[in-house]
């Protein structure tokens, strides 16, 4: 991955994979509302993909300088194996962890790369993923940890 | 001395001066009275504004011919009084027609205005006016009694009824004034003076608390303006007579201003601190105190 476009393609591909992951999980889900839920996760990923696409087309820019709050919710939660009868709580944990992994990935890549432009691009992507993670963390905080 | 045409404009000039003097002087008197009450009072030019305003009022309601003529009569009384007494002794311009008038005429004019007013006010049909008029006539009559006696006394003293001659007799020294030559007559006359100046304790004619404002109750707009005009001229005319008869007259406008002011102030001085007599009380007062002094004055002469 040596050009900005390549990086973006890679990222777009990842988002597509994530979306596929959620929709396949939704297909297998037993509960009515988990289907709904997982599909909405999938749609969320597709939205991210769309956003990256527009970055690639130059319609918008990724910003790397903005601070994204890390609630650290996912840090101390157990890893969940996605199954067909996954609950909402678990699904959110899975999503959080996935986004966190992506964030790590981009951050690491940014650290290893010297080209400032590319570095900037990776940092931007990491930022994006952090935002996604925050989104799921907030949802977890609001929906699951309602009383805690 | 004989009549000359030039005297008519001269006389008008005199009237004009007196009018303005009266306007300002009455305002100052009001301010002095107000000062005792603890306030500043009207602006000195307020009388002019009131006059203009009243002339400018549009509605005019009349109650008949006499109602209209009342203020005219009243003004005539004031003007006549001025015209036939010498305002400034020895001045050609301001001696008016005094050579042809005498005390009797002056006394007549004093009464004439009151009578005219009585007729007009009576015509207005307002009971307060009627009451005011009856009170006014009664009181003025009683008050004039000491004055008449005093006049009688000094006419005996100076052996003339001509005001100019009486003034002439008082020239020279302040001790030539009737005030010092015939003090009893002056005291008697002052009863009449205070009694006819419409100030408390002898203002029962107007008596705002009793018969709202007395004779002029129904008068308004231009009629009222006419009466206002008269109300500054007439007291000064009266004061001029007193000044001439008892206080040596005036030989210049300065002396005139001072003496008129001082005489006028006497009534204010008394008026501000006194309530008002009832009409029969004031009559009794004049008869009880004024009349004997007047008789004494005659006796003294």
């Amino acid at each position, binding site marked *: 991955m040596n050009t900005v476009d390549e990086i973006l393609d890679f990222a777009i591909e990842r988002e597509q994979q994530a979306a596929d992951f959620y929709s396949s999980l939704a297909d297998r889900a037993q509960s009515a509302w988990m289907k709904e839920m997982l599909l909405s996760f999938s749609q969320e990923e597709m939205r991210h993909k769309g956003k990256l696409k527009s970055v690639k087309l130059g319609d918008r820019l990724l910003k790397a300088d903005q601070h994204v709050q890390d609630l650290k919710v996912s840090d101390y939660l157990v890893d969940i194996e996605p199954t067909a009868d996954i609950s909402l709580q678990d699904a959110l944990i899975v999503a959080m962890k996935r986004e966190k992994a992506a964030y790590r990935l981009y951050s690491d890549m940014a650290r290893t790369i010297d080209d400032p432009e590319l570095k900037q691009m990776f940092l931007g992507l990491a930022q994006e993923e952090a935002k996604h993670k925050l989104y799921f963390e907030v949802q977890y905080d609001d929906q699951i940890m309602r009383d805690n | 001395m004989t009549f000359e045409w030039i005297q008519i404009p001269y006389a008008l000039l005199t009237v004009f001066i007196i009018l303005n003097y009266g306007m300002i002087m009455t305002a100052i008197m009001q301010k002095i009275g107000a000062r005792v009450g603890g306030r500043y009072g009207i602006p000195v030019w307020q009388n002019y504004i009131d006059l203009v305003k009243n002339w400018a009022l549009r509605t005019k309601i009349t109650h008949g011919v006499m109602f209209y003529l009342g203020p005219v009569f009243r003004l005539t009384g004031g003007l006549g009084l001025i015209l036939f007494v010498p305002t400034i002794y020895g001045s050609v311009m301001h001696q008016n027609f005094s050579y042809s008038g005498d005390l009797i005429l002056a006394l007549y004019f004093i009464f004439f205005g009151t009578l005219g007013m009585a007729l007009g006010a009576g015509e207005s049909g307002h009971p307060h006016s009627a009451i005011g008029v009856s009170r006014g006539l009664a009181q003025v009559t009683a008050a004039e009694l000491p004055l008449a006696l005093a006049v009688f006394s000094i006419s005996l003293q100076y052996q003339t009824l001509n005001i100019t001659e009486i003034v002439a007799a008082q020239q020279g020294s302040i001790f030539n004034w009737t005030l010092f030559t015939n003090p009893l007559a002056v005291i008697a006359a002052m009863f009449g003076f205070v009694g006819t100046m419409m100030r408390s304790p002898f203002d029962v004619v107007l008596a705002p608390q009793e018969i709202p404002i007395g004779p002029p109750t129904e*008068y308004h707009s231009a009629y009222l303006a006419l009466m206002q005009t008269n109300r500054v001229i007439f007291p000064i005319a009266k004061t001029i007579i007193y000044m001439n008869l008892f206080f040596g007259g005036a030989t210049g406008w300065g002396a005139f201003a001072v003496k008129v002011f001082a005489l006028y102030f006497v009534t204010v001085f008394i008026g501000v601190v006194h309530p008002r007599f009832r009409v029969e009380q004031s009559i009794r007062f004049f008869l009880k105190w004024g009349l004997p002094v007047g008789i004494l004055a005659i006796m003294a002469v």
Partner: protein
Amino acid sequence: MKDMDKSFKKDTETEFPLREEMRPHQVTAPDGQVIDIDPLQDYFCQEPPKVHAKSYFKIVEDFYNWARAHSLWILGFGTGCGAIEMRPLMTPRFDAYRYGIQWRPTPRQANLLVISGYLSVKTLKRAIRAYEQMPAPKYVVGLGSCTINGGMYWDSYNTINKFDEFLPVDLYITGCMPRPEVLMAGVLELKKKIKEGRADGANRYVENFEWYKANQKRVIKNWNMPDYNW
């Protein structure tokens, strides 16, 4: 007593014909009610007032207005509570004489009617009479909330609510009761209005005479007055 012989009775109607506006007629009240009016009985000044034209020359009118503004003679008619605050106004503390304001005990000589507060129906009748007796140009000031919308007596059976239905009001002063300062401010405001020539309440009254009369008749049911005009 025997009835008078018809032949002795004069035909006053033909001999002294009434002017058209003096004959009994009907007016329509604002609420649609038709009201009979007999001017000879209902009008306090025995004829309907007339509109007063301005002077021909503006400068003369301005001069007159200036004089009117500086010589406001208030009718000494305290119709309600506010009268008690008019006394300080005329006494040393506030000394309204300084501004050319005076009390006049008779409406004939006053040109400013201060309605000091609520008006009971009985007083309203006297206030209307006083107003009609005042010479034009004349001004009306409504003092206190009661004149605006009934004030605290809004539900009283004996006090009116909207004073401007009965007489043309030039100025309202709110307060319950207004301090003398406000009354003074009101009078100064009125002066301004007079100087600008806008205080034409008297003419408004004439122009809408029938409307005002209809309103007055709606409220005042007894039009008999003690016999004479004060």
